[in-house]
């Protein structure tokens, strides 16, 4: 029954090789920077949605509210955020005519959408949501094709003046994965199938929009008073 000494020796050599490879692989994984990845389909806890229904920009008394369901990695959302939103903000949001509600709708085919949404959520914790939101959209061409988008989001967070220790802890914990999933689920419930989609007064508008179309829409829902013209 006992193995020949030569056989045992060969076995210990193979065992040693497997051990070295296995330990080496684990050591390599541990030595890499712990870039976060944000899981999909997480179980949503009540605390994920308590008191939170999107990121809001504009006055609480604005007569019109638009909810945008968007994906940070979607090119149309990027064009909309960088080219149209600044005008919408100047013309409608800052003048108190429109309140903007942003909801995450990360599409499955986009590798970094959830990570981007989570990075912005972690910035929100430090009161810098819109800075990070805009920086992520501005840098879409830079991070969408990179091998480590988390590193770039972290750089943006640093540029926005976030406390990076708090940001890292938030990202590592995947603290807002449930909130993002809840936002996505809400979009599915109201009928969102693509991004960007706008929800205005119970109606969905899908496709490409420009600031003029949004202005006309707001005008039709809440005509300007003579003094506001």
């Amino acid at each position, binding site marked *: *029954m*006992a*193995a020949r000494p030569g*056989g*045992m020796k060969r*076995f210990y050599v*193979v*065992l040693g090789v*497997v*051990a070295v490879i*296995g*330990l080496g*692989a*684990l050591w390599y*994984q*541990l030595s*890499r*920077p*712990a*870039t*976060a*990845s944000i*899981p*999909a*389909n*997480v*179980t949503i806890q009540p605390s994920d949605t308590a008191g939170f229904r999107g990121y809001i920009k504009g006055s609480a008394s604005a007569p019109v509210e638009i909810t945008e369901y968007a994906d940070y990695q979607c090119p149309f959302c990027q064009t909309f955020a960088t080219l149209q939103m600044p005008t919408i903000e100047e013309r409608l949001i800052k003048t108190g005519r429109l309140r903007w509600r942003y909801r995450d709708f990360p599409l499955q085919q986009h590798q970094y959408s959830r990570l981007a949404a989570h990075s912005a959520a972690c910035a929100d914790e430090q009161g810098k949501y819109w800075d990070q939101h805009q920086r992520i959209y501005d840098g879409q061409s830079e991070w969408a094709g990179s091998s480590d988008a*988390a590193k770039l989001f972290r750089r943006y967070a640093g540029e926005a003046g976030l406390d990076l220790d708090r940001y890292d802890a938030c990202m*590592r*914990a*995947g603290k807002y*994965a449930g909130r993002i999933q809840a936002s996505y689920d809400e979009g599915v419930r109201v009928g969102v199938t693509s991004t960007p989609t706008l929800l205005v007064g119970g109606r969905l508008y899908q496709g490409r929009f420009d600031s003029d179309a949004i202005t006309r829409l707001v005008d039709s829902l809440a005509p300007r008073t003579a003094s506001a013209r």
Partner: protein
Amino acid sequence: MIYRMGAALMSLLGLFVSAYLYLYKIGRIGTLACGSGGCETVQTSPWSRIAGVEVALIGVIGYALLFVLAMLALQPALASRRWPADLLSALAAGGVLFTAYLTWLELFVIHAICRWCVGSAVIIVTVLVLALLARRRAPEPRAT
């Protein structure tokens, strides 16, 4: 002996797989090399803990026990004894049953498949087959 050697090698492999999943679970590894995203769904689901214990940690302990037992079974004093192979078979059979339950959860409750868990399932089934073969090879206990 070859089957006991095989069981030891496969247990060591399983130990590394479950250690990798456990290190991810406790936040020491940022992302899992998975491809489909199913690993993270499974690893962050409520079923990734049983009675407050991480499933991956149960895997680490189980594979470590299997490895130690298979190595003991190879030692000259025990190489011709049957009981180490019996014990190895019993422990591996428990592992296979536990893995079957976890695979059922993945398929019908979580609706996501973790490739590393599939890898672990293949490993534990292989350990059981090798342990059973080692058991067949070992002589029957002599009546006293």
